[in-house]
C-alpha cells in the first residue's frame, strides 16, 4: 500500500511540471506585458508616460529577457517557496494567494462531500426502484440540473434572495465577521453563507453523479454474486448495501478525478458572480491586467489541487477495491 502511494506521488511530479509550463504559456500568450498594460492605463488618464520609468520597471522584473529565462526565474522562485511579486498589488504573491486558495479548497472540498452525500442515496434508490416515480423524478431533475449553467443558477438565486427576501447572499461572511478571529459564531456565519455557492457549484456534478451511480448499480444488481448472496438468506436492504453498492462505488470514487477540475473551474466563475473571497475574482483580475506572477501562482496551485484530488481518489479506490490493491 505504501509503495502504491509512493508510486502515485512520484507520478505526480512530471504532471506538475507539465502544468507549470502550461500555466506559464497561458500567461505569456496575450501580446504585451504588465508594463505595457500599465502604460496604457496611465495614457488613458491623460498623463504623460515617462519611458525611463517603464524601462526601469521592465528591467526590475526581467520582462525583456528570453522566455525560457523568465520561466526558470519564476519556477526557481516557486521551488524555494517564493511566488514572486504581484505588479498590481505591489505585494508578495504568497501573501495574496494563500487565504484565497484556502477558501477555494475549502469550498471545493465541502461541495464534493455534499455531492457525494446527496447523489449516493438518490442514485441507489433510483436504481433499486428503477422506473418508479422516484426514479422518473430524479431523472428529470438530473437532466435539468446538468443542462443549466452554474452562473445562471447563481444569478437567479442572487435575484430571488435579494428581491424577495431582502437578504444579501454575496460573499462568504457577514461584514461583522469579515476580519474577526476564528470562533464558533464565525463558522456558523460562514455556513449560513456557504450553502449557496456549495449548492450552485455542486448542482450539475451532483446530477451527473446520481446518474453515474444509478447506471453502475443497475449493472451490478443482476450479477450472479447478488443472486448468490440472496440465496444465502440475506435481508434485501443489507444485501444491496453490502454487495452491489460496494462494487458500484468504485467508478463513483474515481469520478473525483474529473469532478474536481469541474468543481474548481465552476467555482472560479460562480465566485466571480457571487463575489466570494476565493481565488476566482482575483485570478480574473490578475489575468486582465497581466499580473503574471499572481495569475501563474493561481493556475499552478489550482492544478496542484486537482492532482491532490486525483491522488486521494486513487488511494480511496485502492482501499475500497482489493483488485487494485493486490495486483
Amino acid at each position, binding site marked *: 500500500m505504501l509503495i502504491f502511494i509512493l508510486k502515485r506521488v512520484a507520478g505526480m511530479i512530471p504532471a506538475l511540471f507539465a502544468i507549470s509550463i502550461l500555466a506559464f504559456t497561458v500567461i505569456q500568450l496575450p501580446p504585451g506585458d504588465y508594463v505595457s498594460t500599465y502604460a496604457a492605463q496611465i495614457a488613458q488618464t491623460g498623463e504623460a508616460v515617462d519611458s525611463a520609468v517603464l524601462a526601469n520597471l521592465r528591467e526590475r522584473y526581467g520582462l525583456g529577457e528570453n522566455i525560457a529565462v523568465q520561466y526558470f526565474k519564476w519556477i526557481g522562485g516557486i521551488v524555494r517557496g517564493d511566488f514572486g511579486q504581484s505588479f498590481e498589488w505591489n505585494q508578495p504573491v504568497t501573501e495574496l494567494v494563500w487565504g484565497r486558495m484556502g477558501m477555494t479548497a475549502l469550498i471545493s472540498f465541502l461541495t464534493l462531500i455534499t455531492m457525494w452525500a446527496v447523489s449516493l442515496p438518490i442514485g441507489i434508490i433510483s436504481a433499486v426502484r428503477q422506473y418508479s416515480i422516484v426514479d422518473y423524478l430524479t431523472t428529470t431533475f438530473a437532466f435539468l440540473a446538468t443542462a443549466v449553467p452554474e452562473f445562471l443558477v447563481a444569478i437567479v438565486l442572487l435575484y430571488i434572495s435579494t428581491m424577495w427576501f431582502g437578504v444579501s447572499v454575496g460573499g462568504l461572511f457577514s461584514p461583522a465577521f469579515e476580519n474577526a478571529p476564528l470562533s464558533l459564531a464565525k463558522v456558523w456565519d460562514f455556513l449560513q453563507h456557504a450553502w449557496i455557492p456549495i449548492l450552485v457549484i455542486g448542482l450539475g456534478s451532483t446530477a451527473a453523479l446520481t446518474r453515474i451511480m444509478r447506471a453502475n448499480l443497475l449493472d451490478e444488481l443482476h450479477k450472479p*454474486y447478488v443472486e448468490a448472496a*440472496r440465496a444465502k438468506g440475506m435481508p434485501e436492504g443489507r444485501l444491496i448495501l453490502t454487495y452491489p453498492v460496494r462494487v458500484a462505488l468504485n467508478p463513483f470514487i474515481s469520478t473525483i478525478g474529473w469532478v474536481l477540475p469541474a468543481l474548481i473551474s465552476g467555482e472560479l466563475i460562480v465566485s466571480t458572480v457571487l463575489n466570494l473571497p476565493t481565488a476566482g475574482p482575483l485570478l480574473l483580475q490578475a489575468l486582465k491586467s497581466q499580473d503574471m506572477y499572481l495569475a501563474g501562482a493561481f493556475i499552478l496551485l489550482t492544478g496542484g489541487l486537482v492532482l491532490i484530488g486525483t491522488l486521494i481518489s486513487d488511494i480511496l479506490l485502492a482501499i475500497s477495491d482489493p483488485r487494485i490493491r*493486490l495486483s
Partner: protein
Amino acid sequence: MSDETILRVRDLSVDFPLQKSVVHAVKQVSFDLKRGETLCVVGESGSGKSVTARAILQLVAKPGAITGGQILLDTAAGEVDIVRLGSRGLAIREVRGRRIAMIFQEPMTSLSPVHTIGHQIIETILLHEKVSKEEARKRAADLLGRVRIPEPEKALDRYSFEFSGGMRQRAMIAMALSCNPEILIADEPTTALDVTTQAEILSLIRELQRDRGMAVLFITHDMGVVAQIADRVMVMFRGEKVEEAGVFDLFERPQQAYTRALLGSVLKLETPAPRPPRPATEKPIAKIEKLELHFPLNAGFMGRPTNYLKAIDGVSLTINQGETVGVVGESGSGKTTLGRTLLRVYDPTGGQVMYWPSNGEPVDIATLGRKGMKSLYGEVRMVFQDPHSSLNPRMTIYQTISEPLRTNTDMTERQMMDRVSELLSRVGLPPDIGDRYPHAFSGGQRQRISIARAVAVRPRLIIADEPTSALDVSLRHQVLDLMRDLQNEYRLSYLFISHDISVIRYFCDRVAVMKNGKIVEVGDVVQICERPQHAYTQSLIGAVPRPDPRLRADAPQ
C-alpha cells in the same frame, strides 16, 4: 438412502410476462425429492430447468413470477409451502441458506470480488446461527478444509480473484454447506469448469452428500454428468416435465420420444463419424513449425521484460489438404491463441507457419506483410464459438455473408445475391432470409449463418474455434455434419479447436493435445481417444464423463 420425502413440488408454474405475450417457463411441473438422493434435472436451453430450481428458493428474476402450484418443504413443524412464503421476509430467508442452499454455474462471478472468501462464508453462518465471530471463523476454516482448499486459515482472508475457477467453486460449495442445509440445489455447477476440475467437483459433491445425508437437486444439460452423479433423473423440455426415472432405467429404457432423441444425439457423438480413408501421400496445406508467442509480463529493466507468458511455446503441427485436425486442451492451454495466431490476430514472436496457396509458392504466414495477409483472407477463414456475439446485430444476414465477398472478390451485387441465397440453402436455411437481422434466429441457425459466411469465398482452410460449444447437444452433430458435408464438397481443411473430447472424436482425423502452450501428444483421433500415451492425455480422457451410468464406480453389476 431413505424413502423419506423432504421436498414435494406440485403443479409448479412460472410465467414471464413480456410486452405482448407471456412465456410459460415452467408448466405444471411436479416431482419429489427424497432425503439423501441426487435428482438430476436435465434439459436443453430454454427447458425451464434453471427457473424450476430458482423457484424453489423464490429467486425467480423479475418480471417472472410463480403463478401456481405448491413447493412443500418437510420441516419439524409439518409441511411448509414455499410458494406462500413470498420472495421477501424472514420466513423465506430462514429457508434460504439454512434449509436449502444453492450453488451456481459461474464460480467466476458468483462470489463478490471486493469481499474476502472468509467474509462471505462467515456472514452466512452469522445470518442463521447465534454464534460468536471467532467460532464462525473457525467453522469457515473447517469448511474450506473440508472442500480441500489448501491452507484454509489463510484462504479465508483471500479474495475470489486470487483463486482459480475450480477453487472458487469449492469456496462456493463451502459457503453453501456452512449452515448444514438439508437440500443442496446445484445449477450447472461444473459447466464453466475444465473436465478435470469438473471430475473433482462432482466427486466432492457426491462425497459431501453421502457424509451429510443431504438431498441434491442437480441441474445440468450434460448427459455424461447425469450418468455419473444421478440417482434419479427428470427430463424437461420447453417448461414441461417429459419423463422421470431412475438413472439406469432412463439410460437403458427411455420411455418418451424426446428422451430417446436427446440420448441419441449424445450417443451419436460417442462414436466417430464415418470418414473416407486418408490418401497414401498427404499434401500439406499448412505447416506450423516451432511457433512461439510470448507476451511480456512486466515492463522489465531498460524496457527488456524479464518474464514472459508463453501462450504458445514451440508448437509444430501439420494440416494436410482435406484433413480435419483437432486441437484439444483445457482453458489456458493456448489452443484459441494458436488458432488466432494462424490468422495473425497476434504476431508470433518466433517460428514459422508455412502455407501452400492454391496457386503459387508457399508463404510464411508468421512473417507475411499486410498485403500478403489480405490475399490470404480469401483462402483461410474463421468460425467462432459464440454465434450470438460473432454476428453484427446491425447487419442483415445478406450483408454479413456478402461482406467477405465484397472485400475479397470483385463480384457484382447480382452475383453476390445469388451466391448468398445459394449458400443459405446449402447450410440448411431458407434462401430468402437475407434481409433479416441475426436476433431473429436461434443459436443453431446463427452458427449456420457464421459457417455460410466462412465458406462464402470458397476458402481452403477454416479455423473453427469451439464452433459447437455454445450449442445444445441435439444441434451439435447437425452442425458438425454440415461442416463435414461442406468439407467434402469444397475440399476444405479444418483446424478444429475444442475442449470437448467427444466432439473432437466425432469430427476429426487427427488430434493434438495442448497444455500450457505446448503440444503434449499428437496422433490419429482413435488412437488418442482409446490409447492415449501421455499421462496428461490419459487424465484428460479419463475425466470426461461418459453418458453410461454402468461405467460409474458404484454401479450395480
